[in-house]
Structures are given as structure tokens and as C-alpha cells.
């Protein structure tokens, strides 16, 4: 049991330590694709260091929500990390504390607070970004629900550790249409939820066109560092859910031996870097959608998710 | 053997007329081919009557001819012959390529003849599809924007129907395979039908009814029909309206035999519903129609509705009446189209409002138009009067009072509408100028075409009567 707790904490450490690296690799690769040199892959760590050692400015008009939000945003992905398989294929100590719906709820809580905080400041861009985020969120929620329904239809469970085994036992399950359609729908969800192209341009610097980024504009110093780090961890966690729970459990440790668990860390990073290359390909080949086209994008995701559910329910 | 010759003959004429560019040569080839086809068809129909079990088999499982098919085949060849003669005079001043017209015309006749001759459902579907393919160029033959629009609508809608029908046929095959049927033919299906799941037969029947119904021109799917049947050159209209619809209806009829054979599926409400709709809607549209060729087209939809009602009633009396209605409609409608084409030749307009005093301007066209109108609307002593009367009688004997009441009132509305328009065209007002003479071949066609319309109303030859009786038994139910 002690080992179980230790491994669970190890997962948290892995997520905390490597999420900036994943971001750095992503940014570097994107620049490389555009024939630029790009920043070092360790740039996010330097950014965090810089922000932590700076002073913080908080507006007099803001309330406690503004000050609490960075901590909520930072802690939410850590809680989710306890629930999902990051390193091991078997359930760890807190695995049964909540299922995928619970994990989605915790992640959404962070998003909810960041929206409130953006409205809380008097900055005109914050509320604008918040309302847009909410619009995307409203459209994304039914898709999330349908994805969970599908998972529960197919695997009879929404506990991530149980779901992940379903896709490869027997191997032919991997090619089930429910599985493939689910992957497509969830990928579209990740793009929308994390404000990647084609829904939002994460590297845009034009406040009027921002959706996701504009919410954190008012933060500085330590709070800004926590917000950014929390955001990266959320991205890392979502990638983990996609790769380990929905795609395959390959590369995860299957025994309780220390060696197995430690060797799982580079394997997971390899999987994530593979996924990042795929993401870079998507982002470099698509243009940002007009705001009102986002509803079409999300409807397509919804349609695919419903098809996945039907394929799962009727098969 | 004769069946294969009949199948190949239009193909050969198409090929030969493709070799020559001269109008005169093409006309001679087509008319000769159609006459030979007609003689062969009559001969084959006679052979069917005397054959064992009343069926001629050329290629087991693929090509055969039964009594119902023989009726349709004779009608196809008769109308093809009349149309080919008519086209000589009608297309006199046409500047488009005569070669294209004649090749397509013969290919169209080939596709039509393939429907009753093939008994494999896959082949039948291909034949139905081919009628669309070969007639679509004929519909758009005039190359005007509205002709092309009509051709486009015709093609898209009927192809859509064909896809649905294909699905229905595949479902039937599925069921038949399940029931261990030998060959995928009409008779094989009828044998297999009792051991097929009823829900599958119902589904297949509805798909075929809607799919083939698009091509027949049943009401919600009829929108292409008035356009195509009014824009095509008149000889083609006669084929489209007179026989293409009925040839496809024949396929539906064979499907109906399968449905009846399964005993646990009831198709009659579907048929009565579609029938009443297809009879009622065009009856009222006929009241306000502005173009007389469209009037003829709507009357086709209306007659398809009557035939469907007869089939929906079921029983051998109604089935025989349905066959008489099919024959009557084919000969009468083609005659009326020839008459309308003559009016078009004389007046050069398709608007009802600008045609007056035909009886003075061109007595031939006027009398033909009037006779055709009376005959198609169901006035005695023409054949359609008797067939509609027998449908009525069959319906009343089965105490379908509501259906029959509606049928009679719709027919009355249509009768009033048609006669209103026709009498205005023929008698109303004075002609603007004295008429042009109709070409000789047009005269010849009108005279030839009116013979069956009148004769069949007064006297039905014994052979035809027996053929219709036999044909009605294959529907069953």
C-alpha cells in the first residue's frame, strides 16, 4: 500500500516536472516546421523561474476570487493525476476516488475559476475571452458527455484503469469503430478545450482574437507562473487521458517492480512526444476557424461522438 | 431464341443507325426495326399463350417471357413503332443531329424491352436504370435551358429512386438466400417468399414502391414527370408517358406478386394510399395547368394512381381491370401525345391560352385532340371507360365505398378539367390564321394510333383477353 501511494505521488511529480518540457518541445517543433530556429525546449522552465522571482501586482478592484484562482488552476490537474494511469497499467491508491466524469469535473472547476477571475478584473479583454471560452465550453460539454456514455457502453465502467484495458483485450477491440470514432471525437475535444488550432491560436498576440489566452492577461509574478504551469499540466493530463486511457495502455508498467515503473517514464514521454509531432502537423496545416465556425467544428465532433456511441451500443 | 432476337434487334438498329448520318436512312432503319420488333412481339405473345405453363424461356434464370411481360412487350413495340413513324414528320425541321436521336431512340427501346424480357432482378434493375440513361439525352434533346432543366431533374430524381430500389432488391436477395432459393428470379422469389421474414419483405416492398414509384411518377415523387414529359420531343413523350411508366409499373407488379405470396404482409393500404394521392393531386393540378403537354403529363400521373388503386383492391377482377387500364392508358396516352404534338406543329406554342379554334385551323389535329381528351378522361365507348368501370365494380363488390367514392370524384374532377381545356382549344374563339398542313407521316400515325383506342373499347380479341387473364393470375393476392 505504501508503494501504491508512492507510485501515485511519483505520477504527480512526473506530471509537474515534465509538463513544461512537453510545452517546450511543442513550441520548438512548431517554429522548426515554419523554418525558424525557435526557442530552446527548456524555455518554459526559464519562464517559470523568471515569473516566480518577480513581484506580483494585484488590482485593488479585484476580490478574493482573483487571488485564489491560480492555486485552484494549479491544483486541479494534480488531483486528476491521482485518478488516471500515467505510469502504471494497474490501479493505484487513489484510483477509485473518482471516475472519468469526476476527473472532467475537477478539470472544469479550474476552468470555471479562471473564467470568474477574468471577469473579476476590470480588464475589458478578460470578460470577452471568458464568454468565448464559455461558448466553446457549452458546445464541448455535450461531446464530453457522449464520449463518457460511449466509454461506459463499451467498457461497462468509467474508471480510467478499467477502460484502458478494454481496447486491447482482445486485440480486435482496438479496431472497433466505437474506439476509433471516440479517439477522433476526443482529439477534437482536446483541441477545443485547450485552445489549440483550428479553434484558437495559442501563439497569437492579438487580444481581440484571443479565446483562451486572454483570461490570464492580468496575472503577474508568482500567480502568472502558477496559472501557466497549471495550464501546461492540464494539457499534459489531457494528453495522458487520450494516450493511456483512450488510445492504448502500451508502455505502462504492468508489475509493481521499481524498475518497471521508472522505465515507464521515458516510454510515456516518448508517446507524448509522438503525439506532439502529430499535433504540430495538425496545427501547421490548419488555419484558425472564424468564431462562428467553431460551432460547426464542435457539431462535427458531437456527430462523431454520437456515431461512436451508436457503434458501441448496437455492436 | 425469339426472345434473344427481340432483345438484340433494337441494339442492332441502334448500331446501324449510328453508322449513317443521313436522316432518311436513319428513319428507314428505325421504322423497319420497330416494325419487325412489333411483329415479333405479337408472335411471341401468341407463343406464350400456347406454350407449356404459358412461359417462354430463352436463357433459364435470365431471359424469359410470361403473359404479363408479353402484354407489356407488345405495348412497348407498338408504341415504339408508332413513335418512329411519327418522328419522321415531327422532326422534319429539327436541326439537331438525326443520328443522335435515332441511336438514342433505339437504345431506349432496347432498355424498355429488356424490362419484361429479363427475369433476374439484378438484370431488371439494370434495365430500369438503362431506360433513364438512354432517355435522359432524349429529354434534353432540344438543348434549351428548360429542356436541360427537365433532363437534370429527371435524371437526379429517378437515379435516387433507382438507388432505393436497389436497396430493396438487395434486401429481397438477402431474404431469398436465407430461404435457400435457387435462382434470383421472379418465380424463385415467389416460391421463397413464404419462408422469408415478413418484416424484411415489408421493408423491401416499401423501398421498391418508393424507388420505382419515383420512376412511375407517384405523387410525392412525381415532380420531375411533368417537366420531362412536356419538354421532350413528342415521339419521345409518347414513349415516356405511354410505356416507360407502365413498364416500371410492371416491375412493381411482379414485386407485388412476391408480397402476396408471403401471406403475412399486407401491401394494399400502401397501394391505395399512394394511388389515391397520385390520382387526387394531379386531378386538381389539371384544373390550373397552363401548358397542354403538361396537362397530358399530369393525366399520366393520375392514371398511374388509378392503376395502383386497382392493384391495392386485389382479387382477380381488380387485377384484370388493372391490366386493362395499363393497356388502355398506353394506347390512349400515346395517341393523345401524337395529337398534342400535331397541335404543337400547327400552332407552335405550348400554351393552352393561345390555342383557339383548332377545329377550323386544322381539323385533323383538332379532332385528334378532342378524341384523345375524351378517351383519356374516360368517356364511353373508349377502352379506359370500360377498365375504369370494372375497377369501380371490383371495388364496390369488395365494399371499399370510401376509396371508390374518392376515386370517382377525382376522376370526375380530372374529366372536367381535361374537357374544359380541350374544348377551349378545339372550339373556343376564331383561329388567328388558317392552319398549316400536317405531314403525311403524322397523319398516318394518328390514324394507326386511334385504331386500338376505338377498337379495344368495342371489342377485345379473345387472345388478348386470355393473355390479360393469365397476366392477372401472376399477381395473386
Amino acid at each position, binding site marked *: 500500500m505504501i508503494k501504491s501511494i508512492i507510485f501515485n505521488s511519483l505520477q504527480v511529480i512526473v506530471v509537474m516536472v515534465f509538463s513544461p518540457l512537453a510545452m517546450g518541445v511543442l513550441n520548438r517543433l512548431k517554429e522548426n516546421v515554419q523554418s525558424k530556429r525557435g526557442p530552446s525546449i527548456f524555455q518554459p522552465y526559464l519562464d517559470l523561474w523568471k515569473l516566480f522571482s518577480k513581484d506580483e501586482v494585484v488590482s485593488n478592484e479585484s476580490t478574493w476570487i482573483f487571488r485564489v484562482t491560480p492555486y485552484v488552476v494549479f491544483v486541479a490537474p494534480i488531483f486528476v493525476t491521482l485518478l488516471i494511469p500515467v505510469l502504471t497499467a494497474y490501479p493505484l491508491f487513489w484510483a477509485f476516488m473518482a471516475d472519468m466524469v469526476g476527473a472532467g469535473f475537477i478539470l472544469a472547476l479550474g476552468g470555471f475559476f479562471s473564467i470568474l477571475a477574468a471577469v473579476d478584473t476590470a480588464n475589458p479583454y478578460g470578460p470577452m475571452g471568458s464568454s468565448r471560452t464559455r461558448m466553446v465550453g457549452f458546445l464541448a460539454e455535450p461531446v464530453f458527455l457522449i464520449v463518457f456514455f460511449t466509454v461506459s457502453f463499451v467498457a461497462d465502467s468509467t474508471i480510467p484503469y478499467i477502460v484502458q484495458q478494454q481496447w486491447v483485450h*482482445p*486485440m480486435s*477491440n482496438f*479496431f*472497433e*469503430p466505437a474506439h*476509433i*470514432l471516440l479517439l*477522433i471525437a476526443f482529439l477534437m475535444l482536446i483541441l477545443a478545450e485547450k485552445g489549440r488550432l483550428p479553434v484558437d491560436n495559442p501563439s497569437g498576440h492579438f487580444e481581440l482574437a484571443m479565446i483562451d489566452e486572454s483570461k490570464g492577461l492580468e496575472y503577474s509574478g508568482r500567480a502568472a507562473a502558477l496559472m501557466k504551469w497549471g495550464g501546461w499540466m492540464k494539457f499534459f493530463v489531457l494528453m495522458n487521458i487520450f494516450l493511456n486511457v483512450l488510445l492504448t495502455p502500451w508502455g505502462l508498467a504492468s508489475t509493481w517492480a521499481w524498475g518497471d515503473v521508472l522505465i515507464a517514464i521515458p516510454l510515456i514521454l516518448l508517446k507524448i512526444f509522438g503525439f506532439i509531432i502529430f499535433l504540430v502537423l495538425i496545427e501547421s496545416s490548419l488555419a484558425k476557424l472564424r468564431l462562428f465556425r467553431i460551432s*460547426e467544428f464542435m*457539431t*462535427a465532433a*458531437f*456527430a*462523431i461522438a454520437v*456515431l*461512436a456511441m*451508436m*457503434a458501441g451500443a*448496437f*455492436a | 431464341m425469339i426472345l434473344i432476337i427481340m432483345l438484340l434487334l433494337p441494339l442492332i438498329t441502334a448500331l446501324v443507325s449510328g453508322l449513317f448520318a443521313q436522316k432518311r436512312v436513319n428513319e428507314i432503319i428505325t421504322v423497319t426495326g420497330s416494325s419487325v420488333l412489333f411483329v415479333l412481339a405479337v408472335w411471341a405473345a401468341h407463343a406464350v399463350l400456347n406454350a407449356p405453363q404459358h412461359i417462354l424461356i430463352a436463357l433459364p434464370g435470365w431471359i424469359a417471357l410470361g403473359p404479363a411481360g408479353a402484354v407489356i412487350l407488345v405495348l412497348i413495340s407498338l408504341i415504339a413503332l408508332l413513335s418512329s413513324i411519327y418522328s419522321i414528320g415531327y422532326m422534319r425541321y429539327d436541326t439537331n443531329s438525326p443520328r443522335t436521336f435515332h441511336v438514342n431512340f433505339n437504345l431506349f427501346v432496347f432498355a424498355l424491352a429488356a424490362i419484361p424480357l429479363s427475369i433476374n432482378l*439484378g*438484370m431488371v434493375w*439494370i434495365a430500369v*436504370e*438503362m431506360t433513364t*440513361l438512354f432517355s*435522359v439525352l432524349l429529354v*434534353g434533346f432540344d*438543348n434549351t*435551358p*428548360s429542356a*436541360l*432543366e427537365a*433532363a*437534370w*431533374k429527371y*435524371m*437526379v430524381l429517378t*437515379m*435516387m429512386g433507382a*438507388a*432505393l430500389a*436497389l*436497396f430493396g432488391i*438487395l*434486401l429481397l*436477395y*438477402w*431474404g431469398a*438466400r436465407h430461404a435457400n432459393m435457387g435462382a*434470383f428470379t421472379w418465380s424463385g422469389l415467389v416460391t421463397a417468399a413464404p419462408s422469408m*421474414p415478413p*418484416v*424484411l419483405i415489408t*421493408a423491401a416492398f416499401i423501398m421498391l414502391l418508393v424507388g420505382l414509384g419515383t420512376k412511375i411518377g407517384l405523387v410525392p415523387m412525381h415532380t420531375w414527370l*411533368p417537366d420531362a414529359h412536356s*419538354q421532350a420531343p413528342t415521339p419521345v413523350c409518347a414513349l415516356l408517358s405511354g410505356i416507360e411508366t407502365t413498364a416500371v409499373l410492371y416491375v412493381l407488379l411482379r414485386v407485388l406478386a412476391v408480397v402476396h405470396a408471403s401471406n403475412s404482409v399486407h401491401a394494399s393500404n400502401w397501394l391505395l394510399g399512394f394511388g389515391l394521392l397520385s390520382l387526387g393531386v394531379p386531378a386538381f393540378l389539371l384544373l*390550373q395547368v*397552363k401548358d397542354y403537354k403538361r396537362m397530358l403529363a399530369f393525366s399520366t400521373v393520375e392514371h398511374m394512381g388509378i392503376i395502383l388503386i386497382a392493384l391495392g383492391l386485389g382479387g382477380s377482377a381488380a387485377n384484370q381491370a388493372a391490366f386493362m387500364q395499363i393497356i388502355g392508358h398506353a394506347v390512349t396516352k400515346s395517341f393523345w401525345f401524337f395529337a398534342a404534338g400535331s397541335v404543337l406543329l400547327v400552332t407552335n406554342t405550348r400554351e393552352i391560352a393561345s390555342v383557339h379554334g383548332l377545329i377550323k385551323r386544322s381539323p385533323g389535329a383538332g379532332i385528334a385532340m378532342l378524341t384523345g381528351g375524351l378517351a383519356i378522361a374516360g368517356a364511353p365507348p373508349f377502352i379506359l371507360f370500360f377498365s375504369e368501370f370494372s375497377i369501380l365494380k371490383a371495388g364496390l363488390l369488395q365494399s371499399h365505398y370510401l376509396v371508390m367514392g374518392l376515386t370517382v370524384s377525382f376522376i370526375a374532377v380530372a374529366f372536367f378539367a381535361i374537357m374544359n381545356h380541350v374544348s377551349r382549344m378545339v372550339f373556343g374563339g376564331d383561329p388567328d390564321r388558317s392552319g398549316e398542313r400536317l405531314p403525311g407521316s403524322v397523319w398516318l400515325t394518328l390514324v394507326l394510333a386511334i385504331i386500338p383506342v376505338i377498337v379495344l373499347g368495342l371489342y377485345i380479341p379473345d387472345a388478348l383477353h386470355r393473355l390479360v387473364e393469365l397476366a392477372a393470375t401472376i399477381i395473386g393476392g
Partner: protein
Amino acid sequence: MSHLIPVIKSLNALTGGLFIITAFGVVAARQVRSGLKFFIFQSLCLASSAFLLGIAPFSPHLFAVGTINLVTKVWLLPWLLIRMMPRTTYTRREIKQVVNIPTSLMIALILTVFAYFVSLPWVHAMADNGVARINVPIGLAGMLIGAYTLTTRREAIPQVMGLLTMENSAFFAGVAIAPDLPVIAELSLAFDVLLFAFIVGLVTRSVHENTGGTFVGHLNDLREDPSK
């Protein structure tokens, strides 16, 4: 061979899933060219389903169907459609449609659910637990979606895409429920489709010459209009 059957079944199911997505794509495509791409991919799915079902139990008919599809619908027909149409048909522009895209997608979804509820009783009645369970509902759904596309699109090529989607869907069901339908029929069917494209090309070309566009929605002179 028999140990492959579960994998074949689920691979076939996967092509079914992708097939229905491409049907959705044809409904939602905003540009003519992307609609055509969806159609090509759809035909590819149909061909691979035919090949998969042809492996076990071995059926040369299905291999023939797959090959015919590959040659005609994946290669020849798109090539014809691109060759025969005026260049402007494929320029990057948005197709006008009667219903907006999210609503169309929702309607297509409803049609799919409807198709499942209608066709599963057939599968139960046939006691067929094989591939028909996947292919028949998807075929019916594709059929309905194709018909829907046909009614909401107003341009020539998108309408043809809807039509061909219907045809593809019929065959998608067909490869599962009629694997031994004589191949001569299949050949002629494919031939039919080709000939059909040829005629479509001819007709739309003349429509284009006569009205200056492939926007057949403008063609509405022929109808019952009391004011005329």
C-alpha cells in the same frame, strides 16, 4: 484463417464507421472539392469492406466488386468529374445550401439513429449475427443521408455526390447481404455508374453553357405557378 475472423469483423466495422463519417462529410462539405474528396474516401471504404468480407469466407465476387469500385469510383469517376466540369466548379468558394451545416449534421445524426432503429429488426429477423449487423444499418443510414444531401444542395456536383453516396450505401449493405450476387450484374452496375457520370458531365456542361453556372437551383422555370 478462422482466427482472423474477429479481426476481420472489427476491421469491417471500422470501415463502416469511417464510411458513415464520410457520408457526414459529404453533407457538411463546404467546398465542392472537399465533397469530392470525402466521396473518394467513401468509395475506398466500400472497396476495403468488400475486400475484407471477401477474405473469409473466400468470395471471388466480392474481390471483383472491390476492384471494380477501386477502379471506377476511386480513380476513374473523380477523374471524369474533374475533367468534364468547367474549372470554375472547383474554385475555392463556398457552396450555397438550404440548411446550415450544424443543423444538417444534426439531421444526418437523427437519420442515422432512425436507420439503426428501422434496420436492426431486419437483422434480428434474419438471425444474422455476422457482418450484416454492421453493414445494413450503415448502408440504410448512408442512403437516407445521401437523399438528404440531394434535397438540400443546389449545385450539380454536390447533388451528384449525394446520389453516389446513396449508390455506395446500397452496395455497402449489398456486400454483406448479397455476397454471391452474380458478378456480371456487379460489372454492369459499375458500368452503369460510369455511364451515368458521363451523362451527368454532358448535361451539366450544357447547363453551364446555357445558364452560366452549375447552380441548378436557378433552374426553376418549370413548375406549377399560378401567376405565370
